């Protein structure tokens, strides 16, 4: 028996030490190039932007040059005003996102797991889901006593539906054989939920979280442009109002970076708790 095990293991290995080191060299070269390519692509984009604005290509006549944006950023980043904007937006995003997560995931699990609950709730979702989250804006302003609360509510709405929907689909698409297998192995219904339903739907939950995280930044920017006060969305809109064009671009880049950081964190956590599945 023992030989077969090691035979199989051997298939993965290279024959001689030379082969191994050649393969390693090749892999190392590939890795080093791919790490260079990614930052290079960003530089390339900057360069194209520079050309478009310097040579006054139509549509780009009013767009500030990269260097102007950079100058504005250098002046603005050290100020507390900028960081207050960043802080406000991030706080709102995180608040809305976490509320969506705390309500959305258990709700989605229930809707997928309990047929009766699903029949009572799913039709409501099917009607509410196609409403673009931004269409909730006027209602949310009327509903909530403070602008802050309506902003968070909008963010919540943006993240909530993708999280619920993906969780439901995740539970519904679990293979019946996993459940049967677990029952055969002596699992109780509670074990099934904890050891089968929960882990099997985790990938879908994270897909929902990623889509939801993207929506949160859509919503915060739109809401802040209306609500005013502080925040990166407000900052960008205000730059337009006071005719500070480089600031518009800088605001946009700041929003992009914050959104990127949030998705990266979600991905990172996903990969940490699902070592069996590296999808992202």
């Amino acid at each position, binding site marked *: 028996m023992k030989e*077969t*095990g090691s035979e199989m293991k051997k298939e993965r290995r290279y024959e001689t030490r030379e082969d191994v080191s050649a393969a390693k060299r090749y892999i190392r070269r590939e890795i080093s190039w791919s790490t260079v390519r990614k930052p290079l692509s960003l530089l390339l984009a900057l360069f194209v932007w520079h050309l478009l604005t310097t040579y006054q290509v139509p549509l780009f006549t009013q767009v500030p040059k990269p260097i102007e944006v950079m100058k504005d950023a250098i002046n603005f980043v050290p100020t507390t005003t900028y960081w207050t904007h960043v802080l406000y937006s991030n706080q709102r995003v995180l608040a809305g996102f976490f509320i969506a997560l705390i309500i959305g995931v258990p709700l989605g699990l229930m809707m997928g797991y309990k047929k009766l609950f699903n029949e009572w709730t799913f039709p409501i979702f099917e009607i509410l889901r196609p409403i673009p989250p931004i269409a909730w804006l006027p209602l949310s302003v009327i509903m909530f006593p403070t602008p802050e609360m309506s902003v968070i509510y909008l963010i919540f709405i943006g993240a909530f539906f993708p999280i619920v929907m993906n969780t439901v689909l995740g539970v519904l698409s679990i293979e019946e*054989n996993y459940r049967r297998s677990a*029952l*055969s*192995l002596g699992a109780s219904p509670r074990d099934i939920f904890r*050891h089968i339903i929960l882990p099997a739907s985790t990938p879908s939950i994270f897909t929902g979280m990623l889509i939801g995280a993207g929506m949160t930044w859509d919503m915060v920017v739109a809401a802040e442009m209306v609500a005013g006060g502080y925040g990166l969305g407000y900052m960008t809109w205000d730059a337009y109002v006071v005719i500070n064009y480089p600031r518009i671009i800088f605001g946009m880049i700041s929003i992009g970076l914050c959104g990127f950081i949030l998705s990266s964190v979600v991905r990172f956590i996903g990969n940490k708790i699902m070592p069996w599945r590296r999808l992202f």
Partner: protein
Amino acid sequence: MAEKSKQGHIVAKNVTKIYDPYGVNIHAVDDCSFEIKPGDFMAMVGPSGCGKTTMLNMIAGFDTVTEGEIFMDGELIASAEKKLMPGPDRMVVFQLGALFPWRTVIENVCFGPKMQGTYSDEKEIKEKARELLRVAGLEEFENDYPMSISSGMQRRVEIVRALMTGPKILLLDEPFRALDAMTKSVIHRHLLELYDLTGKTIMFITHDLREAVFLASTVFVMTTRPGTLKKMIKIDIPRPRNIDVITSQKFLGYMQELIDAVHKEAVKAFERGERELAR
């Protein structure tokens, strides 16, 4: 070779199964009676759709019986009135496998004992798991996830997982169907070795006649749908069996007998299939 198990004696009495999924009655199994002796390695062959899997699901407790009764060790486990009751005394290994991808090999193997709480400490479970994994040639892969090992290895892990709970009978539903011939020959050796080691009663469903003769002590041939037992062939080849036996005169004789029995049913099933398509 270990003692044959004294448990896992299956008696099916006049079992009938009619599916009624969309208002169209499908008569899957008809008045089928048979007996699997304790410690026997039984292989069930028959044309596609003849109710082999249905039979297995009814024994496993995944599917209800329309008429008739199934007993295990004298105890009623399935009848029209009885509530479905799958359990660790009847372990199933599925066609396409049902290893939990979110658990490593050893975590999968230890799942059953943990759920049942049959062992006092984790160390003991793991030791037993490692021993069985060694017999299955998998000891180096215990910390891998199912996705990262080959499908032949996955099936072996699944059989080991099924054995871990100390089942009275092992129900294998075409477990090697998706494997190539080379992998099959390796996995057959492992399965026979595990059988010789544990002496468990096994019900093995397959389309592969050679596989049936090579592995089993008793081969049941099912008729075409509605399926019932057509013929029982005792395979009197001594164990432990080596791959050499497949060229022996005795083996070929059994093959001939089996091919004759199955072929007529397969033709019937095929012709009926043609008729149904033409309708």
